[in-house]
């Protein structure tokens, strides 16, 4: 038996049981719209790639990380003793930030291409949920090294859930595992970070990807308005996939460059008795909500301001999440334009409050 026929008989054996031919036929027929905005199609794939990097480096860190009282010491060993431990940790931290950045770009491109419209509502909703979980991933992961910065940033960050009326303090206390941030908090955040969140994230991600396969890539309204003969598309296999993988490679290079030239630092061990160092601020992706609440607090001081801020914030997020249900018409009517301006205002508000936040760090 030649090696070729051996390979094909193995393929036939597997195909009979798993239906690989159907998948291959599906992939052969799948196409991706080609137009001037095609560049934005790659950001979902880039997000996925960075998530895979997170999983890979996360598992490697898991081998040496020890939650609880030894958390700081174990991260110190990873960074300053283990061979290439610093590289894995830097790649994990940098890819986490790039991951959230890529998801944000992906979200806004979907928003402005109006790719949330029928039949893609579930794609939008599951994407928003994935972004929400990703930010909790970021928040919980930030504390794990238990250095000075992560300790105080977590302490400040937990003030947000604590500000929720009635149930807030109880939630904050449950997350902390006591009245203060300490080794029990690390243990809880660790469980959240490596078990609870992945358990929710992975099936949701599968659902999201399945929807993308089911409905395909949405073309922006300007392209959809064209007569079918003028709409161009390229085959997914191998043309789009090849470009997608090239983007993954470019992302990998950017990640390698950042992780090598700017390795993720480790500050002094957290000490609750030492006063907070100057300039404590949340991670960049939390800067905007943090600053918005702060600005509102200046306008409406006291508890009223806190509650008003949270309400306004919740309302804004709800409007954003529910966009597929009130911007539904295919033609570019008044609602579609309103949704477009709402998106522009959201981008501007996010950028402006982030800049103000960094500008006013003390």
């Amino acid at each position, binding site marked *: 038996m030649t090696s070729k026929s051996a390979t094909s008989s193995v393929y036939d054996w597997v195909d009979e049981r798993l239906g690989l031919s159907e998948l291959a036929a599906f992939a052969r027929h799948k196409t991706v719209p080609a137009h001037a905005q095609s560049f934005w199609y790659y950001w979902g794939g880039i997000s996925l790639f960075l998530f895979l990097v997170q999983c890979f480096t996360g598992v490697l860190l898991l081998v040496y990380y020890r939650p609880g009282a030894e958390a700081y010491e174990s991260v110190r060993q990873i960074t300053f003793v283990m061979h290439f431990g610093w590289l894995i940790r830097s790649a994990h931290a940098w890819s986490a930030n790039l991951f959230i950045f890529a998801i944000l770009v992906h979200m806004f491109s979907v928003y402005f291409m109006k790719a949330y419209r029928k039949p893609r509502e579930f794609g939008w909703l599951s994407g928003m949920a994935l972004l929400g979980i990703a930010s909790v991933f970021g928040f919980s992961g930030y504390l794990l090294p238990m250095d000075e910065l992560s300790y105080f940033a977590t302490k400040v960050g937990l003030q947000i859930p604590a500000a929720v009326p009635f149930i807030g303090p109880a939630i904050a206390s449950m997350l902390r595992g006591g009245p203060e941030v300490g080794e029990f908090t690390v243990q809880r955040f660790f469980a959240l970070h490596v078990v609870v969140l992945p358990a929710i994230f992975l099936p949701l991600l599968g659902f999201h990807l399945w929807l993308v396969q089911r409905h395909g890539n949405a073309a922006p309204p300007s392209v959809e308005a064209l007569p079918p003969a003028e709409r161009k598309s390229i085959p997914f296999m191998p043309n789009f996939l*090849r470009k997608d993988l090239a983007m993954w490679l*470019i992302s990998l290079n950017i990640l390698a460059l950042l992780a*090598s030239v700017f390795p993720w630092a480790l500050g002094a061990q957290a000490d609750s008795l030492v006063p907070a160092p100057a300039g404590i601020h949340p991670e960049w992706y939390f800067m905007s909500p943090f600053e918005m609440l702060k600005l509102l607090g200046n306008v409406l001081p006291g508890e009223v301001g806190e509650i008003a801020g949270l309400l306004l914030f919740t309302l804004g997020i709800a409007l954003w999440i529910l966009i597929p249900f009130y911007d539904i018409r295919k033609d570019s009517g008044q609602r579609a334009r309103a949704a477009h301006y709402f998106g522009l205002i959201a981008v501007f508000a996010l950028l402006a409050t982030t800049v103000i936040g960094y500008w006013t760090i003390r």
Partner: protein
Amino acid sequence: MNYPFWDIPILGSGWVIGIIAIFHVMISQFAVGGGLYLPMAERKAQRMSDPELRAEWLKQLVSHSKFFLILTGVFGTVSGVGIWFAIGLTQPEATSTLIHNFVFGWAMEWVFFLVELATAAVYYYTWNRIDPKLHLKVGWVYAGASAATLIIINGILAFMLTPGGTWLAVAGTGHEASKFWNAFFNPTYWPSLLLRVGVCTSLAGVWALITSSQIDGDKHPALKSSLVKWSVRWLVPSFVATPFLMIWYLWMVPTSQRALLTLGIDTIGSGTFSIITRIALIIIVTSATIVGVAYYLAYRNPVEFNLSHAVAVLLLALMATGAGEYSREMLRKPYVIGNWMFSNGVRVPYVSRINEQGYLAHSAWTWNADGAPTTSYSRGEAIFRGECGSCHTLNGYRPLAHLLAGRDATNIGNFVTMLHEYKADSPYRRFMPPMVGTKQDVADLTNFLNAQVNPPKPGVNQAALRAAK
């Protein structure tokens, strides 16, 4: 220390050379590789049987040679002269040594360089105006002249890393130039030359991808396909040979310096010189990516290969080149000329003399004839500029105010003393020169550094200065 210091705050003097030199290398190595690419492509086109494809190829080569002429003739030339200014100002002592040894080498290089510039212009402006055979000959003259510049400058660059025992035996006697050829064909000459040739041909292919990616694949599929594929082939020699050449090259570097590459494997601690390992990693990642992208996106699918792909390959290639040059420079530590001159310009055999007579006694330009500085602080500042300034700044690149933060005066004093004693087991000995000078020099430098790290509080300023006197 026969020359004045050029103090560059924040950036540091090393980066003045670094930025200009890395920019220059990216272009000049293209000038050499591209110099070979153009006549070879022209010859290939002239031999084509399909007259239509031949005409398209030649038309494309005219536009490529215009791009080539502007990039190398303007930016390459200006940055090359810039290196001279930069090294003369920031490393005058080492530049002086090089000139004393290699003045005729440089003279030869400049002759070839003039030939290179002249033929590049003639080559571009005589397309379709002179006999094609003669035009091709002009191209070959250009290729030869530009290769000769590399062959010569490589000897001088490799000399700085590994001057070789024969030259070192006569160094300081005034007869150094008598060992010109030994210094020139030093231990890393051949692996370095072959490595650079590989980089040159790769860059020729990469830059050619930039111009050929812009050909409209729908209108000229045969031209685009053949030119893109042929350009990718220029990357093959270096990717096959580089791993072996790199091993050969590193094998010729003294063990102690080779070990610098491993410093960053297990740490990122500040002051551990771990950056060299990290930058070397970038070379590996970017090179591997170029292989993948060049093969799958360009060679396998030449017609769809577009400008953004080509720019991505170019940026990766420039990153690899920049990282390679940076690593090579860092590999010289703690010397600027291996085993002869430390990176701050102090000659190795002068250390004991300076330790007896004091650092400033050998710094001709530190003060004018009116007299030496009177305060410990200003003496310390002069010593800082001379001994630390080639690698460190106070608050910018490799900032001493940050690296020494958290230490008090005694602690800083102990640190400077450790650098002064330069014991065999000192970890800093692997990448830093000794702190040379008398006990008083050690105290003066300590005072200066301490005033930067722990500035006197307002109100006691004057008292602190008086105490320092």
